[in-house]
């Protein structure tokens, strides 16, 4: 016989063959035993969890000559025909290709004919989420009350796309993703039957990368066999999957700890050039950091971490060099990188940006990195390493921190000092406010005060009068809205500028005509008013 893919060859043939899904199997078996078979089932769950296979086994169990039985013989005529997909009583419909109302009408017409050879007529409607709404609705009546000999099995990966009226008419079974142990067990079984030797580690790597899908796992196994022949090592699996060596993860973490951008970029370059699987690499790295975190935080981790002893020793070493907050921040950044990678056409740039971010976390201004730096500082204070030198000098940094932060720190210090120095409003210049204006707006946005931010965006600070900051708006309505919330604006200003300022909002319409009486009198609107009411202007005064 010609070669058939392993996942087709080793499709489970009876209930005991199905990996995982213990509850579902038990329920179905009991239903058969107690003769309480429902007329409509819905099997849902992610890919490769056994939906279609279970449906077929159910069909066999019902139509076997000895049936209905929980142990279909597999040898009788109906069983064989079902296995080869040519039984007349088990109708497998590809709902994704036959998704219109006409196909369902056709099905409805044929439902009334009794089964020809078995006890039941089983309709397996696969990928049922792709049916059109009309088709679903046309199915409803039949699905609710089919003839006694008809069983519907609907299978889908996306149950949320089904109508509630369909869901309520079916017994629903949710197939869960398979555990790594389940997959390993099944793969091991297949390998033994096929005469393949594979190391335990290799199996583990396959199982981990299958992400809970048995078909994925067997596909990978198949491919690895094509690649490596009958003796398979862990490294063969890694090569086929494009995995990054664990060694590399240790190296990269070292690089992150040492903040060596050179090596970091070189390493990324290597990964890209080798065509490694970037998303997988990020996931692996996150997993590595997770291991570090667990070792750091938990007293006994043997059950949670699945690594060789050598690796554990190395992990232990690395753990001492990092704080958990820092690990958490790294994971956060990596999560974002992973998300961006899914959409980009330039994975290399995204990876590079990611690594720069990870290393330059000190120079980042996001909340996460502030927290990170704060904890580092706290730790240092706790250890009493800080030496405060002359405050006129911008150097408070203690010796050991200097080399790693040499670029950013003087600047930071400068900025921070500025905030502290300005105590009285008189020192504050308009330029200072303008300089920080964007930051202030950003702050509003981060505080989820979008409205205020949007209103302030088209305003501009125009002058400082004593302890008042005057902000000019182009629209009256904006001015009024901000005026109502001027206290919260003032408090933010204080946070950024270190001075308590009162906020005064004025309406400028157009910046030039503020203040000048002639301009206001010349304004077309004013003139129009004068004309319509046939009046004259008595006095021009500011509303404030």
């Amino acid at each position, binding site marked *: 016989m010609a070669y058939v893919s392993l996942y087709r060859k080793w499709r489970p043939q009876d209930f005991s063959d199905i990996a995982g899904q213990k509850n579902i199997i038990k329920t179905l078996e009991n239903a058969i035993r107690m003769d309480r078979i429902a007329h409509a089932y819905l099997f849902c769950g992610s890919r490769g969890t056994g939906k279609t296979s279970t449906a077929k086994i159910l069909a066999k169990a019902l139509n076997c000559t000895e049936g209905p039985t929980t142990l279909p013989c597999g040898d009788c005529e109906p069983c064989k025909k079902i296995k080869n997909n040519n039984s007349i009583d088990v109708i497998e419909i590809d709902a994704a290709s036959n998704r219109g109302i006409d196909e369902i009408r056709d099905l409805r017409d044929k439902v009334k004919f009794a089964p020809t050879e078995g006890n039941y007529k089983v309709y397996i409607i696969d990928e049922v989420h792709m049916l059109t709404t009309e088709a679903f609705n046309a199915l409803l009546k039949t699905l609710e009350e089919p003839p006694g000999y008809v069983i519907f099995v609907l299978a889908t990966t996306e149950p949320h796309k089904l109508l509630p009226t369909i869901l309520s008419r079916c017994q629903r079974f949710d197939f869960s993703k398979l555990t790594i142990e389940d997959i390993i067990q099944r793969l091991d079984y297949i390998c033994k039957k096929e005469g393949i030797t594979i190391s335990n580690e290799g199996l583990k790597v396959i199982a981990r990368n299958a992400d809970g899908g048995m078909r994925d796992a067997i*596909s990978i196994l198949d491919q690895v*066999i094509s690649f490596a022949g009958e003796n398979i090592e862990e490294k063969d699996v890694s090569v086929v999957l494009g995995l990054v060596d664990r060694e590399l993860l240790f190296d990269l973490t070292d690089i992150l700890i040492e903040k060596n951008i050179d090596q970091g970029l070189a390493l990324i370059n290597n990964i890209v050039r080798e065509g490694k699987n970037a998303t997988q690499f990020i996931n692996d790295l996150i997993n590595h950091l997770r291991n570090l975190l667990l070792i750091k935080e938990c007293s006994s981790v043997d059950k949670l971490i699945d690594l060789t002893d050598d690796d554990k020793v190395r992990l232990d070493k690395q753990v001492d060099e990092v704080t958990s907050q820092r690990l958490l921040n790294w994971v956060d950044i990596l999560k974002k990188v992973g998300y961006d990678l899914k959409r980009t056409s330039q994975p290399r740039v995204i990876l590079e940006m990611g690594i720069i971010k990870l290393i330059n976390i000190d120079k980042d201004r996001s909340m996460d990195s502030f927290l990170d730096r704060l904890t580092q500082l706290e730790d240092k204070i706790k250890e009493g390493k800080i030496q405060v030198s002359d405050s006129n000098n911008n150097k408070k940094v203690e010796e050991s921190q200097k080399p790693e932060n040499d670029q950013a720190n003087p600047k930071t210090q400068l900025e921070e000092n500025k905030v502290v120095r300005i105590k009285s409003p008189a020192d504050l210049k308009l330029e200072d406010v303008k300089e920080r204006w964007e930051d202030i707006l950003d702050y509003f946005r981060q505080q989820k005060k979008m409205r205020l931010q949007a209103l302030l965006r088209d305003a501009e600070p125009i002058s400082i009068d004593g302890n008042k900051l005057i902000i000019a708006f182009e629209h009256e309505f904006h001015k009024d809205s901000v005026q109502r919330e001027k206290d919260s604006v003032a408090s933010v200003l204080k946070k950024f500028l270190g001075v308590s300022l009162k906020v005064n909002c004025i309406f400028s319409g157009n910046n030039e005509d503020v203040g000048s009486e002639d301009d206001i009198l010349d304004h077309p609107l004013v003139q129009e008013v004068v004309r319509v009411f046939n009046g004259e202007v008595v006095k021009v005064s500011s509303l404030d």
Partner: protein
Amino acid sequence: MSFNDLVGQDLAKTILKRSLKADRLSHAYLFIGESGLGKDIAAFEFSKAINCHESEDDSCGECISCRKAVNNNHPDIKEIRPEGASIKIDQIRELQQEIIYKPYESKKKVYIIYSGDKMNIQAANSLLKTLEEPPSHAIIILLADNVNKILPTIISRCQLIRFKRVSELLIKDNIISNYGLDEKKADLITALSGGRYKVALNLIEDQELLQERDRVLDLIISFKGIDKVEAFSVVQDLLDDRERISQILDQILVWYRDLLVLKLNKEVNLVNIDYLDQLEKESNGWNIKGLEDIIKLIEETNNVIRGINVNLQLSLEVMMLKLIRLRGKNYDQGNRGYF
């Protein structure tokens, strides 16, 4: 013609050849890798090799089957390409009807689906059942640039073959020996290709591409002193190249990436090596944060343009205005650092 025509991609070649030799052909393959890595060549050679009368694990190029394939009239090698913007369900339905017929003259009937990531949702779903259990005489090869745009249910049914970027050394050697380029030009083209051999070939064969690139780079360099009004005219310029907008944005992205790399004082791995002077000049004024923000901005714009049906002109204008603002905030501020 044979697998040897494919530059690099040793892993892919090995897997395919070994499965040919061991007669372990899967019924479905998914070739994944960025465009320009040679997926189409590999798929074509593979389909030839499957039906070749002479050679066991490659195509001989001499037998009648191979010759027919080369002349594009092999009855058992079928190609499916996007019709317009996507592959439609009707194309897949047609495949399903045809695929049940036995091959006319060969062992296997091979379907190559180009741009598999361009299948629309209906088409992709309707392929599932066929992809899982096609008739024993059929092999389906799917090609896709981005694995994340393929349904997980499709991936799980296929043997995944990954295509990598080719090492720069290999590309350089190849273009020098095949096209007799001088060292300097070969270096430039190698850097621009970024490990994609076909991109390198296009650059050599189509002189206009390089000129086009110079034009775009000049435009990018002119961003320096630009004001808000000029930004709109830049967008007009960009709109003239509507079809290539995604590549142009990539070019802009790479430019800023180069600036960033240079800013970090790493001269290695620059892409636009021939513009080193300008890059150096410009990178001095920037701070890291600003460059990061700009790269993020361009990347987002590009995603929006490619992924969603948006008004191209508006999104480009917004991008340019934001870019100017970022420049105002981050460029030439001395050592203002990250605040």
